[in-house]
Every structure is written in structure tokens, then in C-alpha cells.
């Protein structure tokens, strides 16, 4: 919010620069706009952009760094007794201070020290904001003044402005790379810290997953064990069930829609698939946990099977339902890309429609179908809400779909909600799992693309 307080006066200043720049250009040629190199507005834009840039930069810096700097300054001002506390306690205390400063109640009982610190915090904040605003305005004014002085009729204002805008366009397109780099760096850094505590061998090959760190240090298994194999196996199990459901249904649905369906059925089925694709995953999760899992349990009891109340089967079935439209639309693309001449040739040889589809169309469309299948697998592996709500937390190493299993995404969510301590192996494990998830899905996507490119039949 405070960044707006910095940015607003800068914006006002830029507006003034726009007006001044435009006027200065016009005055210089006595109002005859045709004697200017560019349209008068460009001179205004030129001055306004150069003026706004430094001020907005300061505002951005404030967003990024201000709260951190404020925290550090507040901690530095605390009495030694408080400053020497453990980082987690210090964080709690600081939280209290901010609560008091925000007009709320204190929670952990910081007492008078917290009250004083809150006063100090408020003072620091308003002073910092004042400095930042002043500095931003000063820089912007200087830059604006310099820009205005350069406004002359022969200044190629339009070219300058367009160069700046093009640079801005290019910067926004590189954001995609920044995001990828950010994902990789943040996951890798935390994962490296995790692998400093737990050996990668144990993580990737250990068979025991119980990340709960105990309350007391002397408790059994207090260090937790981080063998992620049961988690990976659980993920694969749920994904496999989902794909067993989604692949035949999705593929057959696409085939039926392309080759057999009457207009009426197509008009009915298309929106159904679109709605299935648009339903939020949390809704599927609720459906799995509340309708499918109990139903499976009842069927299981009737058949004399013991079905866990959070079985892999329930989560997998519902995830399959979610993925059907994904598979069907990707296979549809692959099927319609097969040239009609192949189909007609097959008909001409006397093959029935199903023979044509099975023996000609599907083999020709196979790379696309396999690529779509891999993308769907990557989707299923990364799917979170269905498994969080319908699959369990118990890390059983099993291939029985009626048992409860846990998945990578479930573990990430449970490890990172609730606890806010970011130094324990428990929370860092979530980032290691996230890294594994990121690279697994990345590999699947790259492989899918590769298969589509490499094995695509060229007909033209």
C-alpha cells in the first residue's frame, strides 16, 4: 500500500512533465506543429517517461525491500536480552510488535518492551516512507528537468519514446525466463539446504517417510525419516489409476465425436467435456472425499474387501474424470490432423469405419496421442487438491489401490501449512519434493514435445 504513496506524487510529477514537454516543443516552433520532428505528444511522453522512471524504481524497491529493512532496524533497536533470543522466538516477538503497531492485540506477551518497539517501528516506518517519497520525488524532478531541457524541435522524440516502449515490451517477455529461473533457484536453494541435513541417497531410495519432527528431542524418531520412495510410489499409483480411467474414455470419446456422433450428441457432449475441464480441482476433491470415497467403502464392505476411507482408488477415479477432457481434446487434435486421404483410401479398400480407425487413423495419430498422454500424466502428477482432500497422509509403500497412499503434492501441502519455521528438515523437505515434482513434470513435457516432433508423420 505504502508504495502507492510514493508512486502517486511521482505520477503527478510525470503528468506535469508531459504537459510541460509538449508545450515547450510547441512554443519552440511558435505553435506550428508541422515543423517538429515528431507529433507534439511525443515530446510530452519523452519528458514524462524519463521523469517517472527513477521515482517508480524507488517505489518498486520499497515494495521489495522495505519490510525487510524495517525488521532489521527494529531488531537492531531492541534491548540485548530480546535480540539474543532464538530466531523463531525473535520472529514471534517481531510479529507481536507489528500487531501492536497495527493497532491489534499482542499474542505472545511481549510486555512493555514490545510496546516500545512498536512505537519505534511506527516512527521508523513513517520516517522511512517520508525519506523514500522525498528521494523519489527529487530523483524524478531532476530527471524530468534534464529531459525537459533536451526538448527541442529537432529532438527525435518519437524514436526515443518508441525505443523506450520497445525495451519495456522486451523486458516483459523476458519475465517468463525470470519466472522459470526464480522457480529453479528457489527450489534448488532450499533443496540444497535440505540435502545438507538429509542425504540425497536416503531421500531418493529410503523406504520410510515420517517427516513429523517430535516435540521433545529425546522422543523416538525425533529426527524424522525422509525416504521418499513411498511418496513417489503413491503418486505413481494414483496417477496410474487416473490414466487407466482417463485414457480409454478420453480417447474413445474423441474418436466417437469425430467419426460417429450425430450433431445432436456432439452439441450435448462438447459442453459436457468443457464443463468437466472447467470445474475447479477443489470441487473434484470435495466430490472425491464426500461422495466417491464413502461409496467405494460401501461397495468394498458389500464385497468383503477392506477399503481405506482415504483410498488411492477414490482419488484416482476422480482425477481420471478430471483428465478425460484433457486427453480427449489432445487426441482430437491428433486425429483431425491425419489427412483425409488416408481415411478415404482405407474406405476405398473396403475397410469398415472401426477398422479404418484402428488400423490407419490411430497409428498415424499415435505420436500426437502419446504426447497428449504424457502431458496428461504430468498434469496428474502435479494435481494437488484432489489428492490433498481425498488421499491420505499415511505413507504406505503399497500397490493396492484400496489402501491409503500419499503423494508428493499432498506432502508439500502438509509440510508447509501450519508450521512456519523455515529451518527444519521438515519444511525444507517440501522444497526437495517440489524440485523433484518440477523436474518430473518438465521432463514429461519435454518428452511429449519431442515425441510429437520426432515421430510425426509427414504427409505433404
Amino acid at each position, binding site marked *: 500500500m505504502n508504495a502507492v504513496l510514493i508512486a502517486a506524487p511521482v505520477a503527478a510529477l510525470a503528468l506535469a512533465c508531459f504537459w510541460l514537454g509538449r508545450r515547450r516543443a510547441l512554443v519552440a516552433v511558435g505553435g506550428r506543429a508541422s515543423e517538429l520532428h515528431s507529433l507534439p505528444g511525443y515530446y510530452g511522453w519523452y519528458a514524462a517517461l524519463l521523469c517517472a522512471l527513477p521515482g517508480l524504481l524507488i517505489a518498486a524497491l520499497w515494495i521489495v525491500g522495505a519490510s525487510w529493512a524495517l525488521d532489521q532496524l527494529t531488531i537492531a533497536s531492541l534491548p540485548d536480552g530480546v535480540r539474543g533470543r532464538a530466531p523463531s522466538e525473535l520472529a514471534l516477538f517481531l510479529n507481536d510488535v507489528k500487531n501492536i503497531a497495527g493497532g491489534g492485540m499482542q499474542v505472545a506477551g511481549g510486555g512493555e518492551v514490545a510496546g516500545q518497539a512498536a512505537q519505534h517501528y511506527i516512527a521508523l516506518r513513517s520516517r522511512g516512507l517520508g525519506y523514500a517519497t522525498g528521494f523519489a520525488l527529487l530523483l524524478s524532478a531532476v530527471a524530468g528537468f534534464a529531459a525537459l531541457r533536451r526538448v527541442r524541435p529537432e529532438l527525435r522524440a518519437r524514436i526515443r519514446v518508441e525505443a523506450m516502449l520497445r525495451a519495456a515490451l*522486451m523486458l516483459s517477455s*523476458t519475465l*517468463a525466463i525470470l519466472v522459470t529461473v526464480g522457480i529453479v533457484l528457489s527450489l534448488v536453494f532450499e533443496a540444497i539446504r535440505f540435502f545438507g541435513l538429509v542425504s540425497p541417497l536416503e531421500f531418493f531410495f529410503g523406504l520410510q517417510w515420517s517427516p513429523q519432527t517430535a516435540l521433545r528431542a529425546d522422543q523416538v524418531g525425533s529426527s524424522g525419516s525422509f525416504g521418499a520412495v513411498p511418496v513417489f510410489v503413491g503418486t505413481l499409483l494414483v496417477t496410474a489409476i487416473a490414466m487407466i480411467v482417463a485414457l480409454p474414455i*478420453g480417447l474413445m470419446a474423441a474418436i*466417437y465425436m469425430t467419426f460417429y456422433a450425430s450433431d445432436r450428441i456432439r452439441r450435448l457432449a462438447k459442453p*459436457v467435456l468443457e464443463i468437466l475441464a472447467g470445474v475447479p480441482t*477443489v470441487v473434484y476433491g470435495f*466430490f472425491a472425499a464426500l461422495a466417491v470415497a464413502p461409496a467405494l467403502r460401501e461397495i468394498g464392505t458389500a464385497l468383503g474387501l477392506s477399503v481405506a476411507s482415504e483410498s488411492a482408488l477414490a482419488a484416482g477415479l476422480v482425477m481420471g474424470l478430471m483428465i*478425460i477432457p484433457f486427453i480427449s481434446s489432445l487426441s482430437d487434435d491428433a486425429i483431425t490432423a491425419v489427412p483425409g486421404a488416408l481415411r478415404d483410401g482405407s474406405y476405398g479398400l473396403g475397410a*469398415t469405419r472401426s477398422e479404418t480407425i484402428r488400423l490407419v487413423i490411430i497409428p498415424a495419430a499415435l505420436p500426437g496421442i502419446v504426447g497428449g498422454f504424457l502431458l496428461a500424466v504430468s498434469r496428474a502428477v502435479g494435481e494437488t487438491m484432489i489428492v490433498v482432500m481425498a488421499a491420505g497422509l499415511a505413507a504406505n509403500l503399497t500397490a493396492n489401490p484400496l489402501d491409503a497412499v500419499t503423494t508428493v503434492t499432498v506432502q508439500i501441502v502438509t509440510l508447509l501449512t501450519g508450521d512456519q519455521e523455515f529451518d527444519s528438515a521438515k519444511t525444507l523437505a517440501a522444497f526437495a519434493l517440489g524440485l523433484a515434482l518440477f523436474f518430473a513434470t518438465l521432463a514429461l513435457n519435454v518428452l511429449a514435445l519431442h515425441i510429437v516432433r520426432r515421430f510425426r508423420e509427414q504427409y505433404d
Partner: protein
Amino acid sequence: MTDPHPGARWKTPEMNARLARRHASERRFRRLGLAAILTAMAGLAVLLISILSKGIPAFWSTEVRLDVRFDAEVMGLDATAPGADADALARADYGALIRESLREIFPDVEGRREVRSLQALVSVGARNELRAALVADPDLVGSSLDLWLPADDEVHMLLEEQIDRDAPESERRLSDTQIAWIDALDAQGRLRGVFNTRFLLSGDSREPELAGIWGATVGSFLALIVTLAIAFPLGVAAAVYLEEFAPHNRWTQLIEVNINNLAAVPSIVFGLLGLAVFLNLMHLPRSAPLVGGMTLALMTLPTIIITGRVAIQAVPPSIREAARGIGASPLQVVTHHVLPLALPGILTGTIIGMARALGETAPLLMIGMVAFIVDVPGGLTDAATALPVQIFLWADSPERAFVEKTSGAIMVLLAFLIAMNATAIALRARYEKRW
């Protein structure tokens, strides 16, 4: 024409049998396809029916009519200075008022436990309503009012027949006596079902009958505003650059590969990014719509870039050439001609991306928008939750009455999504140009 198989006889029994087999297999294949479509339809139907059937009761609530006498003594107010002190009014014992009016209806209820289980039939929220009434009009002290007050969720569930009366007493949340009281109240016409405005207009609560989705809706709205403010300009700018200005080199290729990959990265990974960068590195406030919106923006960006590029591609080159021909600069071509023509397509893609962001839960869990928050958020940095997260929280709740609240919230969320997608479709139908 010569017969390629001079000896072939097309009407032999073997030939006929083979043909029949092939046709049977054709029919089987066709039925299989129909079965696949029907399975998908049945899945959707079961999903929607199970949510609608559970969710519709959430829009109704039960109220109980009580004759409340604002007795200063019962409330623990100082009788000598009635109505003078607003602070005292706010702290008075309104539970006692409800207790007294219930005991007037059931005079033979004795004992603390009995009275308490009787009082449990009226929602805790009734006290707040009495307090609000009295604070608004302190002169009410001493007078009597006939008021409709919210009943407890168990009463509502009994009337909605969600509680099985025939189940053994130990397996029910309501005891036999409580059910008898409820029936007596019902017989006296003291119970009514009303449209549950509280569900739509209030924040979260531990009490199912008081819990509402307004706080979560506002949280979602604020987060989406941030998402739109970040993702739309950046996404459009990136799409324009890649389509109109980017040179064809390795750097551009790298950007394109990156965007396509980001579109397929699981949403929870974006949550981890938000947690590591926005919270741990930049120290932005936890649970805030600001951070939620920023995280969702990174997730939506690839969608907007990809749909934006398609829309820009659809503008025919002749438009650009004509504009260039009359002296427009490359950037003027884009801002004066290409962008306005591509805008409907870009907006359609943006709305679809926003709808996806609205339904997204996992990244918001990572950045802590998962707390129990009663207050409706007032700004971008207030602690807040979002509609899908609220659904997740309620689905996790052990109270059975929250099941219908969850389904009700899902219905509201789906309504928003349908509205957004319908807007996108209408926009496309209205402004799509065929060149």
C-alpha cells in the same frame, strides 16, 4: 476390367460369416465410443447432482421466534443507570436473556444441564443480534420484543431431515429431549425457514449457521484484481513483442519454450515460488491477497501470452502493411491498429485465465491464505482467504453442517466461473471478426 481374384466367390458362407463378424465388431466399437461419452456425462451428472442436492439447503436457514424481555437485572446491567453506558450494554449477558425467554416457553425445564441443552438450540449468534439491537436503541431496556433469532445448525439439519430421528440417541448430535423441544417449537409456529442472507453476506465462523462466504469472496476479488493488474499488461506486452518485434534468434526461441513450459508447470510449484520469493525473500505479508494475486499472476501469465499471441496473429498482415504505407511507425501500427483489432481475442483469453485463477487453490495454500479469518478483508495486505480455499477449509471441518455450507460455496464459485466463461463466449461471438 479384370477380376484380381478370379476364383473369389463373395457369397460363400465363410465370406458371409466373416462379414458378419466384421460388422459386429464395428457395432461393438461404436457402442464403446458412445459408452465413453456417456460415462463422462454420467460422471459430470453425479458430480453436479451430489453438489446441488447438498448445497441448496445452505441457502436456507432456520430461525426461532422468541419473546425477549430486555430485563436489566437478567442481563446483569446496573438497573439504576439503564441505557446510559454503551460499554456496559456491549458487555451485558445476552445469553441469559435467551435462556429466560426459552424457559418461559418450556417452564418445566430444570437443572443446569437441561437448561444448557435447551439453550443450545439457539445459535450463539443470537446474542450478537440482541446486543446489536440494544446498542442501536438503548431505550429497549425493560421492554419486550418478539424476535426471530437464528437457530442452531443442528435444528436446521433436523428440519432439513439431515439428521436421522430413528438413529440411536448416542449416534445423533441431538438428544431425544432436544428433538421433542424442537418439535414443540415447530408445533407452536416458532420455527421458520428463511433465505440465508447471512451465508452470502458474512465472514467465516466456527458456527456453521453463522458462517458466510462474503469474506472469502472479497479475498478472491482482491487477489484477482492484483492478478489482472500484473498479468494483463505484462502478458499483452510480451505477446506483442513476440509477435511483432522479436527477431528470430535463439533468445526468442528460449523465451517461447519457456512460456510453453510454464503453462504446464503444476500450480503448486508456483505456490512454492511465491512462498520462497514473495514471503521469505521479500517479506511481504503472509495470507495477503496482494501475495496471492502476485502468485496467481505468474501462473496466469503464460495463458494470457499464448492466447494474446493467437489473437494478434489473427489480425491480417494487410492491416499492418496499409498502416505502414501511410506512414505509421511500427509501434503506431501496433497501438493504433493491431491491438484494437486483437483486443476482443485478448480479453477472451484473459477472462478464461482469470476464471482459472479464481478456481485455483493449491498456490494459495502455500502462501498462507488458509487461515481461519472472520473479518472481511479491507485491503490488499489484510489477512484474507479465497473462495476455493474457503471450500477446502470447510470440507475439512468435522461439523456435518459444514457439508452443506461447502456445497453452497461451491455453487457460488461455479456460478462465478459460469458467468466469467459466458462473458468470454459472448465477447468472442460479438466481436470476433472473420477476415
